[in-house]
């Protein structure tokens, strides 16, 4: 029983970190309806940044978020203006491939700049916490707490502020939103930049847990995509729920079946959800059957 609880708890904790890394993506998905294939590389860049600040200034990575989050906001905005916006009024595949090209570019620019060496930060907390027979890694717990705070905070913004309302309107129907006077292009920009900023926050949480190297994004990008679609495009609680599902499934299937299958089980879960609840677990009705806006 203790084993099962340990697996469950670890799955939820790591799942929250996965969710944090995916919240930005689901916002971008929901508002702009585009797939950002460079998402893993945004994470990688932010992780390098967090590592660099920690390594050079001796701060801890959570403090580094003060610099990384705004920096990623600007980075996201820049990418949006230079690459995404010109691609938006073209056939949908253009954005897909443009972001893919960006992904290759960022991976290899990082390789040229930082070499392929793994970068790590020294452990922050010497020991894990114990709750009875269950171990809890402090950095994971912090990640969980930060994710929850972030989710609640975002929900507040979405439900209580004008910006949030504008975003919700754009998610529901971009054209109608424009007719209502919402500056949809600016919403796009803000959302893309904010989504990137959230990735920056996730990176700060992840740097104590994972090594950084140019192709690290590849290990996470598929997980992020699955979480976003599983949870429902544009739904923040959906991303959280999706993250928990993925984390727990990975944990339980690795133990009770075999670790060699890796990501098989949550991909299968993903496909099952797509068959029976194609809008995702918490997505809006009809989202999956709505085509691309071109």
């Amino acid at each position, binding site marked *: 029983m203790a*084993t099962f609880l*340990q*697996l469950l708890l*670890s*799955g939820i904790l*790591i799942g929250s970190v996965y969710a944090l890394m995916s919240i930005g993506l689901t916002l971008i998905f929901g508002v702009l309806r585009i797939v950002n294939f460079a998402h893993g590389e945004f994470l990688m860049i932010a992780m390098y940044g967090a590592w660099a600040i920690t390594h050079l200034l001796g701060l801890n990575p959570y403090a580094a978020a003060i610099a990384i989050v705004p920096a990623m906001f600007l980075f996201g905005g820049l990418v949006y203006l230079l690459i995404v916006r010109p691609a938006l009024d073209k056939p949908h595949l253009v954005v897909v491939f443009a972001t893919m090209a960006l992904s290759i570019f960022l991976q*290899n620019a990082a*390789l040229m700049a930082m*070499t*392929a*060496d*793994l970068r*790590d930060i*020294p*452990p922050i907390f010497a*020991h*894990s916490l114990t709750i009875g027979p269950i*171990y809890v*890694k402090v950095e*994971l717990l912090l990640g969980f707490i930060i994710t929850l705070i972030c989710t609640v905070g975002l929900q507040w913004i979405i439900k209580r502020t004008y910006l949030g309302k504008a975003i919700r309107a754009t998610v529901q129907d971009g054209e109608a939103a424009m007719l209502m006077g919402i500056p949809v292009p600016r919403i796009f920009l803000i959302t893309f930049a904010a989504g990137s900023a959230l990735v920056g926050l996730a990176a700060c949480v992840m740097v104590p*847990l*994972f*090594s950084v*190297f*140019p*192709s*690290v994004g*590849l*290990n*996470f990008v598929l*997980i992020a995509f699955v979480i976003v679609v599983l949870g429902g495009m544009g739904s923040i609680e959906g991303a959280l729920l999706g993250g928990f599902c993925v*984390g727990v499934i*990975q*944990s*339980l*299937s*690795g*133990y009770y079946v*075999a*670790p*060699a*299958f*890796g*990501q098989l089980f949550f991909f299968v879960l993903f496909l099952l959800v797509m068959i029976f609840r194609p809008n995702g677990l918490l997505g809006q009705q009809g989202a999956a059957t709505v085509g691309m806006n071109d």
Partner: protein
Amino acid sequence: MRRLLRLSALFAGLVLASPITARAQEPIKIGVLLPFTGPLAKNGIENWEAMQIARDMINERGGINGRKIVYVQGDATTPNAAISETERLINREGIKITTGSFASPIAIAVSQAAERNGAFHWETTGAAEIITRRGFKNTFQVGAPARKYGQAAVDFVLNDVAKRLNKPAGNLKIALLWENRAFGKSVGDGIRAYAQTKGLKLAFDDGYDQTATDMTPIVQKLKDVGPDVLIAISFPNDAILFQRKAKELDFNVGAFVGVSAGYSAADLRDSIGDSVVGIFVADFPPKVNANVLKPEIRKVADEFYKRYEAKLKRPPAGHAAAGFSAIWALFTDVLPKAKTFQPEELRDIALKLDLPEGSLVNGSGIKFTNFDWAEDPKDAGQNLRASIGVWQWTKQGNEQVYPPSLATHEAVMVPMPKWNAR
């Protein structure tokens, strides 16, 4: 008359000298196929640095009979890219000698492309057994095949660790964890088979997905088994994740034996700090008991280590030292004897090599099979004298602990202290 003699001597000298000097200036081109980009890039580039040092050192010593060595690179980032690049080097650059490849899947692909296009392939580190078992004539695997890694680990555990743990070898609970790619699976298969011949049953035997981001289920399963010894085959990223998770969940073993790439990376210490001390690694020796090496080789080894550390600010990992060893052997024991540098000639020279242990920088010898190996008549080009030992991470660096002939120090910290004591 004397003037005529002098003139004809001069003329003869010119006639004889010109083609020789012309050839002496013509460099020897060697194709180097390594993963320079992609997830394997880190170790690929380390191998490359080691090979470059070898080239510089041999050229400073006058090259091969006066001819300098020149490398032509191919970015073998995936097996199919490896095949394309190898073919490009052979067909478009006219290369007849190839080397590489660090990783097993790349090595399998490169050697096949070389064989198919008529080039001589000198594989430095790729370990998968299948490399030499396909009936190829021109593939020579200088480094140890996968099963030797496993055998070294198992032998070390049975002959050394068992005593220190005060348990008879037959009673030891041995766990095996392997990453689910060509190297991990190959070594894992070898360990399983070897353990069977020793009459041992593994208490735990599981593969895992190398891109895993959460090691909780694996560590939890291992905790359930409670092994005395864990033999783990991992690459750098997963090795770090595993160690961290083991610390988080307080998973302790009497002895931890990592196999190659992940655990022998020199910057593992940068990533997990002092937790690394006490871990054993079955891999190419990063440094050997200098008394084992012949004096000239000892000097070469010293120079290599000096240059590598000067350039990369850390000592070479085992596989980089192995890459240097292998290519140096090519430069000093094979190429100088060649006249035409055609693959058939190089093959003959290679097959005649009979170098005892201690002849190469990393302590290995060379004796290749030629379809005459009792265990597999289709096997050719395997180096029966490639040595894999076991070394241990220490506070200052590392020490070779097994086999005794190569050891620079005794194994310590067995049983390994628990996490809260480290």
